[in-house]
C-alpha cells in the first residue's frame, strides 16, 4: 500500500477516534473559549484597546490551546499500539503524515470555532483584506500540526512526555505565531504578507522534512 494511502487511513482513523473520545469538543474547545472570555474581564482594558489586541489574543489562544489539539490524549498510542505500527507500516513516515493531516483538520475546526468567539468578545479591528487571514490560518494550522505531531512522536514513551511535549511544541511553534502575527500587522497596515507567508511555508517545509526523515529513526527508538 502506498505511503499516502496509509497516511490517509491513519488520518481518518485518528479523526474517528477523536470523534468518539470527544477530547477536543468537550475539553479543549470550551477551555479555549473560556480563555478568550476571561482575558477582557481579567485585564479590564477599555474596549478600544481590546479591539486592538483582539486578533493577537486569538493567535495566542490558537497557539497555546492548539498544542493540546495536536498532543491530544486520544492520538497517543499505547506501547502495544506503537509496536503494532512498527510491525505494520511499510513506511514509517505514513504515521507522521497521517497524524499531521488529522491534527491540521482538527486545528482548522478549532480556529473556525474560536474566530467568531474572538469577534464576539474583542470586536477586533479587522483589516480591509481580512479574508487573507484564511490562508494564513490554514498555514498556521498545518505548521502547528506538523510541529505537534513531530514532538508527540519524539517524546512518545518517555517518562516526562506529558510535561515536556506542550513545552517543546509551543516553543517550536513560536516562528509560526510570529508569521501569523506579522501577517495580521501587515494586513492592518495594508502591506504585503508575502514575507510572513514565506516564513510559515518555511516552517511547514522544514518540519515536514524533519518529520519524514526522522520517522525511521524514531521508529527504532
Amino acid at each position, binding site marked *: 500500500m502506498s505511503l499516502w494511502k*496509509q497516511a490517509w487511513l491513519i488520518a481518518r*482513523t485518528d479523526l*474517528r477516534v477523536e470523534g468518539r*473520545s470527544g477530547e477536543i469538543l468537550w475539553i479543549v474547545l470550551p477551555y479555549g473559549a473560556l480563555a478568550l472570555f476571561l482575558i477582557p474581564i481579567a485585564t479590564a482594558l477599555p474596549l478600544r484597546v481590546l479591539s486592538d489586541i483582539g486578533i493577537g489574543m486569538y493567535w495566542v489562544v490558537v497557539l497555546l490551546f492548539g498544542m493540546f489539539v495536536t498532543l491530544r490524549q486520544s492520538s497517543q498510542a499505547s506501547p502495544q499500539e506503537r509496536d503494532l505500527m*512498527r510491525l505494520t507500516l511499510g513506511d514509517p513516515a505514513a504515521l507522521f503524515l497521517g497524524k499531521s493531516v488529522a491534527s491540521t483538520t482538527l486545528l482548522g475546526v478549532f480556529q473556525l470555532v474560536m474566530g467568531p468567539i474572538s469577534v464576539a468578545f474583542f470586536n477586533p479591528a479587522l483589516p480591509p483584506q481580512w479574508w487573507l487571514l484564511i490562508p494564513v490560518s490554514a498555514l498556521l494550522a498545518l505548521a502547528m500540526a506538523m510541529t505537534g505531531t513531530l514532538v508527540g512522536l519524539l517524546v512518545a514513551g518517555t517518562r516526562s512526555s506529558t510535561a515536556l511535549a506542550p513545552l517543546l511544541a509551543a516553543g517550536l511553534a513560536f516562528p509560526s505565531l510570529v508569521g501569523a502575527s506579522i501577517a495580521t500587522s501587515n494586513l492592518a497596515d495594508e502591506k504585503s504578507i508575502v514575507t510572513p507567508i514565506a516564513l510559515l511555508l518555511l516552517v511547514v517545509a522544514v518540519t515536514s522534512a524533519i518529520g519524514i526523515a526522522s520517522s525511521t529513526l524514531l521508529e527504532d527508538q
Partner: protein
Amino acid sequence: MAVLGCDRGATEGILRLVQALVQLDNVTLAFGANQVLNDVTLSISPGECVGIQGPNGSGKTTLIRVIGTLQQISSGSVIVLPLEPKPRLEIGLVGHRAALNDFLTLRENLEFVAGLRAIPSSEVERTLSATGLDPVANRRADRASQGMRRRTDLARIALTSPKLLLLDEPYTGLDETATGIVDQLIKNTRERGGGVALVSHDPAVLTRVADRVVSL
C-alpha cells in the same frame, strides 16, 4: 555443497544465516546497570517452534522484543528474516496486552490493520467468523472482555499471516476455543515454513507445543 572461494567453515556459517529465520549471536542487553540479557545465542529455523522459559525478570519478554526488532541491543548480532526485503512486515507479535485502540470496535481494529496491509475486507469478515468474534465484533475494544481483546489480537495475526510469530504468554487467560486458535496459528505458521518463538512459564505448554526449549 561447495562454494568456490570460501572455506568450509565460512560456507556453513553463510548457509546457516540464510537458512535460519532468526539468528541471535552473543546478544547482551543492559538497561543502565541492570543486565537483562547476557550472551544469548538462539536460532529459529523454518517450520520450527522454539519455547522460551525462565523465572520472572529473566528477560523473556525483552528477548521476544529483540527478536521482533523492537528492542535495540547493547552488543552481539541479531539477524531476522534475512531474505525478506522488509522483515518487520513479516513479524507477528502477541504480547501480554492486546494492541488495540480502545475507541475503535474490535472489527474496526482489524479493518485498520487490514487497510494498512491492503488486505480485502472480506478477509476481515472471514477472520472474525473463524475466531468466533462475530457476535461481539461491533463492540468497542474498551468495552470488550480481556478474553475477547486477546482473541482480537490473535485474529490480527491470522489476518496478516506473518512468517515469524512471536507469542508472549499467549495462553494466559484464554478459554478452550481461544486456546485452539493459538494452536492453529502456530500450526499454520509452521506449515507455511515460518518460525515461532513462544514464551511461557508453564512447562506443560512448552512440552506440548515447542520443538525445543531455551532457558534464560
